[in-house]
């Protein structure tokens, strides 16, 4: 009996300590977040935009993406593809799954994405518009093939905001507004929520995509932060359509390696259909 009481007393003490620590952490978190946000707002918005790009992907990389699209009333589709990006040369992608699409290749050059399907019987690649949907997903062709924002958008600070994030929970983030710098840009405006990690890395949390007419029509949440290609990056991108309720595409980065030894021929249109 005495022993039971001792155990009970010990457990109560442990709980009280844990609660105290928890409360202290919760009380300190907003302060830390505020400190983080002030470090962000002190820097130029264009610098932050560049940092966002660096966090999302290395300059040159080889990666494998798994893309899953759910639309109400439709079969869920899944696609696995290898992705090769060489800064200044372009992006080359090859579909591995599903079986019907295996071998399908994409090449991003400038603002255009070229698609070649070896099963089609045609020797010619089809040009896809950057704003069109990528293979029926909520992502656009530009979202998938062009990891750079600073080429097409100019950024400005747009205050701070506390948002609920699936990975970080409640977090105070700096808002950056990236406006299209030319007519060829895929979106009229992108609003980005970014925070600073413990290691001082600018981490994007959420992107809201606006059309040229000002309509907010897509929202991307960046989740499951972890180590990829030697740095902490989002490993899951969840793009939600705000026009079609329930339409969601997730891209999970299954692997990523920073490497710059891809040959130029890989990004040449002459090679796409061979």
């Amino acid at each position, binding site marked *: 009996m005495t022993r039971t009481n001792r155990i009970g007393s010990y457990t109560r003490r442990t709980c009280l300590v844990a609660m105290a620590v928890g409360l202290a952490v919760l009380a300190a978190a907003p302060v830390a977040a505020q400190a983080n946000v002030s470090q962000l707002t002190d820097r130029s918005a264009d610098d932050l935009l560049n940092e966002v790009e660096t966090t999302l992907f290395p300059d040159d990389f*080889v990666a494998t993406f798994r893309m899953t699209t759910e*639309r109400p009333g439709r079969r869920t589709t899944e696609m696995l593809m290898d992705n090769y990006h060489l800064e200044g040369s372009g992006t080359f992608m090859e579909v591995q799954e599903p*079986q019907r699409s295996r071998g399908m290749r994409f090449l991003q050059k400038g603002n*255009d994405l070229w698609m070649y399907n070896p099963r089609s019987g045609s020797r010619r690649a089809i*040009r896809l518009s950057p704003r069109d949907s990528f293979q029926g997903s909520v992502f656009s062709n530009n979202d998938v093939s062009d990891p750079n924002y600073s080429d097409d958008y100019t950024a400005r600070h747009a205050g701070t905001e506390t948002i609920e994030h699936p990975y970080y929970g409640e977090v105070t983030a700096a808002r950056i507004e990236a406006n299209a710098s030319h007519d060829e840009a895929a979106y009229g405006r992108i609003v980005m929520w970014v925070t600073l990690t413990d290691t001082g890395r600018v981490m994007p949390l959420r992107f809201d995509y606006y059309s040229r007419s000002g309509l907010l029509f897509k929202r991307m949440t960046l989740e499951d932060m972890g180590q990829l290609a030697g740095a902490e990056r989002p490993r899951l991108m969840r793009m939600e359509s705000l026009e079609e309720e329930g339409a969601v595409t997730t891209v999970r980065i299954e692997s990523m390696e920073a490497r710059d030894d891809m040959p*130029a021929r890989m990004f*040449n249109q002459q090679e796409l259909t061979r």
Partner: protein
Amino acid sequence: MNGGRRERPAGRRYQQRQRFRPRTTGARAAVVAVLLMCAAPAFAQQYELLGSVETRAMAAYRKDSPVVADQDLRGTWYGTTLARIAATHRLTLGDGSGSVASPAELLIDHALTILPVSATDGSGSSILDSLGVDAASSDGATGTAGTGSAAATGVLVSHELYQAYVSVYPADSLTFRFGRQRLNWGHGWTFSVSDALHPQSPDSEVEPGFDGASVAIYPSANLSLEGAVAVQDAVASGDLEDIRTAGYLNAYLAPVDVALSVVHEYATMLRPGVGFSVPVGPLLLAGEGAVEAYDPRGEVLNAQPLASIGGEYTWYGDVTDVVLMGEYIYNGLEETYPGITAPDLAVTSDAAGGFQRPGRHYLSASASLAVTQSWSTEHSILVNMSDQSFLVRHDVTLQRIPAVDLSATVTWNAGEASSEFGMLREGMVVELGATAHF
């Protein structure tokens, strides 16, 4: 004009080339391909296989017209079935890491078609033609560059080798290729008027490559320079003068893609060409121009222009995809080849790029609509405006079953019996097919 070369009948090579068809290779090529496939994995870092198994049931209507020689068969239907296995093997050799940095690669792209012998009687040969299968070579006759194999048990087995080449990458910006291959050539949709290098046929579902060697230099990702030597005609004739050479320069000057080309064969061909494509909003505009300097029949200079201009509209929505294409083609070689009437005459790359009875003006258009992973439909028409004949194709494909396509296709034509498409014996071919992809 031979400048000291040995004399020979003018137009000899032109006559030879009339027999040139998409080459069908049989048992020997199939055995070589299989042996290569068996041996290569021992040296390969990575092996990829892409292919399909297809079955088709077809019904064809013989025209009630003089183009059907046997009067009893005019205005009647006949049917046949076939099975087809197509495969593309890609072997990355050496100790490179996948396709990123490998020193060499082997590619074999081929197909095996099996169909009842009954399909090869008179009227059925058009079905073989429509598949790009050369019945003459398949039953043992000598083809341009292949052998044939025929089963004795009432089925015909035909092996078609579209590409089989080894790529060697001595440097990142340098590629050598040896074997049967294709270069990515031209900016035309229906065909490329500057492309006199690759064997072409309007009937072939998959166009084969040329036999020879090529070298490609990539100074940057936006610039390439290729040179090629095609030897299939020289091998067939035993005459080195039949070797065809070509050069192709492609530059991407964002957003315009520009190409310069030239194809040459001694005394029968000199065809410089230029092409471009440029995106304009949702449209891709593309054009090509070329001049053929020779009349190969007389081996005399007789320059004639060729040109094409067209546009493609693509719209890939969340669920639905739309592609529309329209193209006009001007064929100045109609002047060089007037009054061609032989029904089996394949003019191929010497003339209009594959038209069997070339006209001066052509219109081509197609429209396709697809619902992602559900169904798609495509409709196309090719009009020879000179003789007012046309060829139409409708296709519907269901994609409800993973990795399996179920399709229905109707192909029909119209025109005078003497016209390019009106001379086809089958006025309509209806096909039902199932294709499993692997």
